[in-house]
């Protein structure tokens, strides 16, 4: 049985005089310990799927099951102990007036987990940050360091599933490499399951076992990693995306 099962998910937003269909009839399954990618241009609905799982966007149709159980509304503590999300922009996803210590210890306090002190220090070590960062504020950190804090925060409750929404697109190439390496190491060490969104096909290819190409809120094509690398896509849109990918550009030059 797959750990994440999404059947015919639809997300509609009511925008006054019209209804915006952000996601339409998307189905996908992610096995435990698998890394699954969603790729497409902005507005294709890929981030909305992650937000719908977390309850940040309404589920208008279809079902989402985690470990066989349908999602409850509100999601509740049990959900946040299993599923956590890392957002795109480390500049806006951390509370600007909370120290790193407070950001990291809040989930522990909410869930009544003890031994806060040692856990916060360990969490910083796990993402390769010096424990002296603990009492700093987000504005005293670089973008890459902030994204590490965001990842540490997501891991505080030791979830099984990480939902990653463009975790490196706000970062420099060299910092992106470090962050992707960190995510891969944590996944191997902890047996995490990733559902990752990116517009960069090369990043998705590096990180994921399977990838779903999306366009205009619909699933276009699901590709295994080998098929992607060998350019065995069957739809023209997936091929367009593949051809426009930055690292292909260099080969073509």
């Amino acid at each position, binding site marked *: 049985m797959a750990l994440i099962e999404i059947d015919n998910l639809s997300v509609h937003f009511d925008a006054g005089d019209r209804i915006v269909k952000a996601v339409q009839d998307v189905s996908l399954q992610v096995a435990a310990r698998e890394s699954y990618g969603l790729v497409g241009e902005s507005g294709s609905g890929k981030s909305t799927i992650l937000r719908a799982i977390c309850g940040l966007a309404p589920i208008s149709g279809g079902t989402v099951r985690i470990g066989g159980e349908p999602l409850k509304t509100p999601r509740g503590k049990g959900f946040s102990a299993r599923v956590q999300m890392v957002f795109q922009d480390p500049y806006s996803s951390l509370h600007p007036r909370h120290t790193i210590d407070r950001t990291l210890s809040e989930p522990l306090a909410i869930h009544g987990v003890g031994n806060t002190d040692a856990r916060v220090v360990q969490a910083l070590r796990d993402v390769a940050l010096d424990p002296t960062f603990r009492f700093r504020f987000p504005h005293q950190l670089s973008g890459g360091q902030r994204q590490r804090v965001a990842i540490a925060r997501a891991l505080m409750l030791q979830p099984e599933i990480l939902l990653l929404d463009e975790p490196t697109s706000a970062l420099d190439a*060299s*910092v992106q*490499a470090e962050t992707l*390496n960190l995510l891969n190491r944590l996944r191997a060490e902890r047996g995490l399951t990733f559902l990752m969104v990116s517009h960069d096909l*090369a990043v998705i290819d*590096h990180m994921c076992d399977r990838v779903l190409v999306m366009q205009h809120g619909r699933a276009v094509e699901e590709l295994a990693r080998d098929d*992607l690398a*060998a350019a065995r896509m069957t739809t023209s849109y997936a091929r367009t995306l593949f051809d426009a*990918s930055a690292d292909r*550009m260099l080969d073509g030059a």
Partner: protein
Amino acid sequence: MSLLSVKNLRVTFDTEAGRVEAVRGVSFTLGRERLGIVGESGSGKTMTGRSMLRLIRPPGRIEADEMRFDGIDLLRASEREMRALRGPRMAMVMQDPKYSLNPVMKVGRQLTEGLRLRDRLGAGDARKKAIEALQAVQIRDPERVMEAWPHELSGGMGQRVMIAMMLIPNPDLLIADEPTSALDVTVQAEVLKILDDLVKTRGMGLIFISHDLRLVARFCDRVLVMYKGRVVEEVQAGNLMAARHPYTRGLLNCLPRIGGPREPLPSLDRSGTWAEA
């Protein structure tokens, strides 16, 4: 004669914590060609671009042995002369449409403002020119975009509006600061094609600032690689794969590739002597 020549450019900020040198001795010349400037955040690439237009506010200071644009000494030009250059002769497309368009002015008014004030065109003519400019950057429904507020545009649309705005006065030099980093790959390819056509058809000089080395290599003729305010290497874009400097190689290697190996990406090794102050 080259369009732009810069010798030993330095940009310094006197802050409370002491002097910060953002650009430290950058020299280059530019003809009617596409020059790429690449580096990480904080490498001084944006500051180099802004210096050309003297758009650095105190406490920042620009110093150089020479900074000439088409025979004009940019270091000695008065503010009035600089104002006459900015726009009609040299223009800059800023990084983020969200922060660089005026949020409380409709797109149409922002586009026609320069035409009306600088070129003293009437409302009708200015509007016509603005719509033509929007069409030139492949915006399909320019009439609607003219009436839109900046927040109603997507990132790609906003970026194209900014490019259109800079191209209306037909400048000789365009400085584009990360013009495509907010865009999806498919839209990115379109915007690059627009810029490329403009360089070819109008004979414009282009400085293309980006952190994406592969993109720059594909698009530009020559690439300057910057690190900590210095140019560490200048390469012909076609020979980028043969670049020798460890920093350039590091930037190239740390990017994932489709079908590449699954091992950890090589991180940038900053232990060499080149990385020291």
